């Protein structure tokens, strides 16, 4: 058959929605696993260790080639999922030019399934703002801080930059010009202008400050939690729906898929939501 039809047909659109959606579900799991490192203070003795733990993870995620490829797939998936969703919604609106004067859709469908476009739009806005807040800072912000750690050196607490080889560079020496920082993260010898070590971008600090800032910390926390609730509803319908779209419907397994979907749509957003709540309310 013609390739174009495979891309354009109503069923093909379903496949793309389903495939990108399921991939994004996988992404969510990965992203969640990473974000949960923000709770590292729960199992690390000092806040600095916790921060390091998280920042090491963040560095891995931004530099590992495999992860990089996955991240591009993710961006494309989000775009495709959104664009396909918009096309579907517009076409579907056209399929019913006149609406019913009296309609009771709640008699035959769940709320989430009827509002995927709205839920999706909210999630898209969230993703954009979320990326502006963190992803863009991590990638492009010239003033992105590097992680430091305070060690009691000779009785007096002293601040050090942590480097990726497990070493430390005293912050004072950098401030005095013995080391220079190029490309935001690289420590160069002050005289020889040779790269010596690599620091960690302190995403942990950025995150904690984001949710703890005096004026906006609470509203941001609330918005994040609300967004996760929206995500939950989106997943509540989307997860099982993806399987149906791909033709996986067998009475033997439908119960299982449905239950996994329910579990996924509650547990994953809930775990995401715990993080800002923990940071804002519990983290000292």
């Amino acid at each position: 058959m013609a390739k174009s039809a495979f891309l354009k047909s109503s069923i093909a659109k379903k496949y793309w929605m389903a495939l990108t959606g399921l991939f994004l579900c996988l992404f969510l799991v990965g992203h969640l696993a990473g974000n949960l490192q923000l709770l590292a203070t729960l199992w690390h003795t000092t806040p600095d260790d916790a921060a390091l733990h998280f920042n090491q993870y963040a560095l891995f995620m931004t530099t590992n080639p495999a992860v990089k490829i996955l991240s591009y797939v993710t961006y494309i998936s989000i775009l495709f999922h959104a664009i396909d969703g918009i096309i579907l919604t517009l076409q579907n609106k056209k399929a019913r030019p006149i609406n019913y004067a009296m309609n009771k859709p709640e008699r035959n469908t769940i709320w989430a399934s009827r509002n995927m476009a709205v839920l999706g739009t909210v999630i898209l806005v969230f993703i954009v703002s979320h990326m502006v807040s963190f992803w863009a800072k991590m990638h492009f912000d010239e003033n992105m801080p590097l992680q430091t750690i305070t060690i009691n050196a000779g009785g007096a607490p002293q601040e050090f930059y942590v480097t990726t080889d497990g070493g430390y560079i005293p912050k004072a020496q950098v401030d005095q010009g013995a080391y220079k920082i190029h490309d935001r993260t690289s420590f160069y010898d002050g005289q020889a202008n040779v790269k010596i070590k690599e620091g960690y971008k302190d995403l942990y600090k950025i995150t904690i400050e984001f949710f703890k800032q005096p004026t906006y910390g609470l509203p941001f926390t609330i918005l994040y939690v609300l967004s996760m609730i929206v995500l939950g509803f989106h997943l509540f319908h989307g997860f099982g729906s993806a399987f149906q779209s791909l033709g996986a419907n067998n009475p033997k397994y439908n119960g299982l898929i449905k239950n996994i979907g329910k579990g996924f749509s509650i547990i994953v957003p809930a775990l995401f939501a715990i993080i800002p709540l923990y940071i804002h309310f519990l983290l000292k």
Partner: protein
Amino acid sequence: MASNKNINIHLKIWRQKNAKTKGSIETYKLDNVSTDSSFLEMLDQLNEQLINTQKEPIAFDHDCREGICGACSLYINGQAHGPASQVTTCQLHMRSFKDGDTIYVEPWRSKAFPVIKDLIVDRSSFDRIQQAGGFVSVNTSGNTIDANATPVPKHDADRAFEAAACIGCGACVASCKNGSAMLFVGAKVSQYALLPQGKVEATQRVLNMVRQMDEEGFGNCTNTGACEVECPKGISLENIARMNREYLFASIK
């Protein structure tokens, strides 16, 4: 029949002179409706009342009045074929309503089902989908092999029958928020996909039927499941999934 009594109702019914004119909702009052009457008998009664006052009766599609021809439609109080489950409008009885109720009666709403008059819509798009591939290409000579020469597992025969029980009424399209016809098409594709006789041309069938469905202007399926709930014959969503599989395999063949 023990529950028979008479009720008085208000009706809000879509009136539209023909495909070209605009329509609107008109209000009617109808007294002494027996709760044993079917919904269409209630409309007969209203029409009789209209004719007796020299007004134009309401046009609606109906024929067998026993739930099998698929002619009757009607979006009643916000639901295809009304509030009862797994029935057509002709099988809906007035005992589902209470004295004093206001009942909305509207035609199916879909770009692919344009209104012809009042509550009558044009569902020939379904016929065209069927014409695109809803058949087994066998001539009617009767010189085929003996009916029992190819055993069909009972399970498959039963599933095929359940899919084939579709009456083509269009309730799936009418209740789908997207105006999608996937349940109708899925049921037809499934019936043949499940039978050895239909497998031979399964690839072309699903591609052609889906192409025609898209051309008719039906919306896309978003798996809300409204169609399955409102289908008077209880056609399962499994049939849409089966069509999705068939289409996938057909596309990559």
